[in-house]
């Protein structure tokens, strides 16, 4: 009964660590991978806009033609792409803890420049080829959630759009976005001739930093952020999250260790006579140590396995709660949310913690002498 309660305690601890750890890890991974989006480019946004990696939050719109021509005229700019980057897109309308839906409007001739060589799922799909068409491409996760396929008609802000392709990508942001031509996005979201991001690619021989300085010097109402600057803005937050997570893990592991140590100590003290008898009949110290440590590690193996299952489920539930995406949609991607390597790491950590918890009682068991036990009994 006592051992069962100890197992329950360690299972709960493991569940919490795995669920919280995997959620934090997934969140930071998603944030970090967004930086891939405008890799090697200067991101120009209006002053006052907060940028998380590549996602502009708040701030004002930029007059598209004026700003684009001003930026393009700066020596050292090879190419510019005006983008309308919006979140949320308004499907579902429920309150979300983290932004999970994005609309991105990009000029039709710049798809590959922004999203790279991202393929489309299956046959029959294509990227919108005409700036004035109502064709859109959707991320796979968003499409799965709403049951969209190629040819599905969707209505956004009163406009009927046609899904002409499903993006086949691992990138969380693209998985949750609707891509369309810039002109269509401006029409649907009612931002005529406006964008909130302009990316500028430096010409050969020009550094991102130098170009960003020149842009800010020439266009007074914008901020020009290099990739490093964008990373630097979010990096302290991510580091702090990871530190908190590590601290939490350490505290919970410490509590588990104390729990296992207490239960094993009680178990050893109840069996002092057995350990003393083992010593009397000549059992090596290592044999007694092994018995207790194996018992403690079995608690770890059982608790670790059960804790991993419940913790992984917990991570999926948290992901669903934070994003309002149905739980079932996360099941196929469980190993992306709780990576196998993380599972192995957590399992081994739990077993190690339990072994350590058994170490002190094991030493006490090995030190039990028959003479002491008999003296205490008589």
């Amino acid at each position, binding site marked *: 009964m006592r051992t069962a309660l100890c197992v329950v305690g360690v299972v709960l601890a493991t569940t919490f660590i795995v669920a919280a750890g995997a959620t934090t890890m997934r969140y930071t991974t998603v944030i970090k991978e967004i930086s891939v989006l405008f890799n090697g480019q200067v991101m120009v946004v209006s002053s006052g806009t907060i940028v998380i990696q590549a996602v502009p939050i708040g701030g004002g719109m930029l007059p598209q033609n004026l700003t684009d021509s001003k930026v393009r005229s700066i020596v050292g700019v090879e190419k510019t792409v005006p983008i309308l980057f919006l979140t949320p897109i308004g499907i579902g309308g429920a309150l979300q803890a983290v932004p999970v839906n994005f609309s991105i409007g990009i000029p039709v001739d710049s798809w590959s420049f922004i999203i790279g060589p991202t393929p489309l799922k299956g046959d029959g799909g294509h990227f919108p080829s005409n700036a004035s068409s109502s064709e859109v491409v959707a991320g796979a996760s968003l499409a799965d959630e709403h049951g969209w396929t190629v040819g599905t008609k969707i209505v956004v802000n009163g406009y009927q759009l046609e899904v002409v392709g499903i993006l086949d990508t691992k990138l969380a942001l693209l998985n949750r976005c609707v891509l369309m031509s810039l002109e269509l996005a401006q029409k649907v979201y009612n931002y005529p001739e406006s964008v909130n991001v302009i990316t500028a690619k430096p010409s050969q021989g020009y550094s991102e930093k130098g170009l960003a300085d020149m842009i800010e010097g020439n266009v007074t109402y914008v901020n020009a952020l290099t990739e490093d600057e964008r990373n630097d803005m979010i990096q302290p937050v991510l580091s702090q999250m990871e530190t908190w997570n590590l601290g939490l893990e350490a505290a919970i592991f410490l509590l588990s260790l104390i729990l296992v140590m207490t239960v094993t100590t009680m178990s050893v003290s109840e069996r002092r006579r*057995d350990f003393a*008898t083992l010593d*009397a009949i*000549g059992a090596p110290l290592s044999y007694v140590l092994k018995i207790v440590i194996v018992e403690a590690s079995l608690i770890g193996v059982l608790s670790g396995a059960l804790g991993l299952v419940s913790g992984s489920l917990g991570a999926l539930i948290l992901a669903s709660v934070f994003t309002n995406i149905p739980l079932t949609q996360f099941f196929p991607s469980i190993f992306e949310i709780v990576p196998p390597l993380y599972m192995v790491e957590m399992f081994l950590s739990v077993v190690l913690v339990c072994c350590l918890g058994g170490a002190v009682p094991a030493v006490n068991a090995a030190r039990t002498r028959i003479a002491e036990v008999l*003296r205490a*009994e008589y």
Partner: protein
Amino acid sequence: MKVRTEGLTRTFRVGSSEIAAVDRVDLEINEPDFIAIVGRSGSGKSTLLNLIGLNDRPTSGKIFIDDADASQLSSSQRRNTRLFRMGFVFQTFNLFPILNALENVELPMALAGKPRGLQSERATSLLKAVGLDKRLHHRPKQLSMGEMQRVAVARAMANNPEVIIADEPTGELDSGTAFEIITLLHDINRKDRKTVIIATHDEKIVALADAVYAIHDGKMKIQN
């Protein structure tokens, strides 16, 4: 195995005073003696057996095993001496409750690194010799007290030791069962030529002993 002690003393501190549980004891046990150590409860019998059985270290004095000073042995050498050269029988049997009779007897052989097949074969034969061939797979809880003590005797014989040290082996048994155990130990002494040292106040054991040492307040009083 020949055991000799010289001025063997073991004291314990109780509060501020020091009590000598064994006080300057000299004795000599030859092979294959059947020795009884008698005395009232608390007289120091068990402490003396623990010292002779290398389960405790003397405060002063020496124990010689085959004329070698046992106080010079390391913990590991003492452990090996207990494992390979001595067998122990306790008043309260001290069987391992999660192991059945066969496994309890196999354990010392497993600790000694004997092959699995040999362990099983010898344990079965020893349990047969003590009349428990039909109780091999019973756990201690399923055995009577007499049967448990028989298993303990078989376990003590597992590694074919030179000496059996028994601490009040009949203390928990009724007179009939006690007689069976005494007979068993006496047979082991006579037939297998093992030295048997028993702490007891059982008159029947005293009557069978080659030598009787009486201990009172830690001091050896009478020697027959």
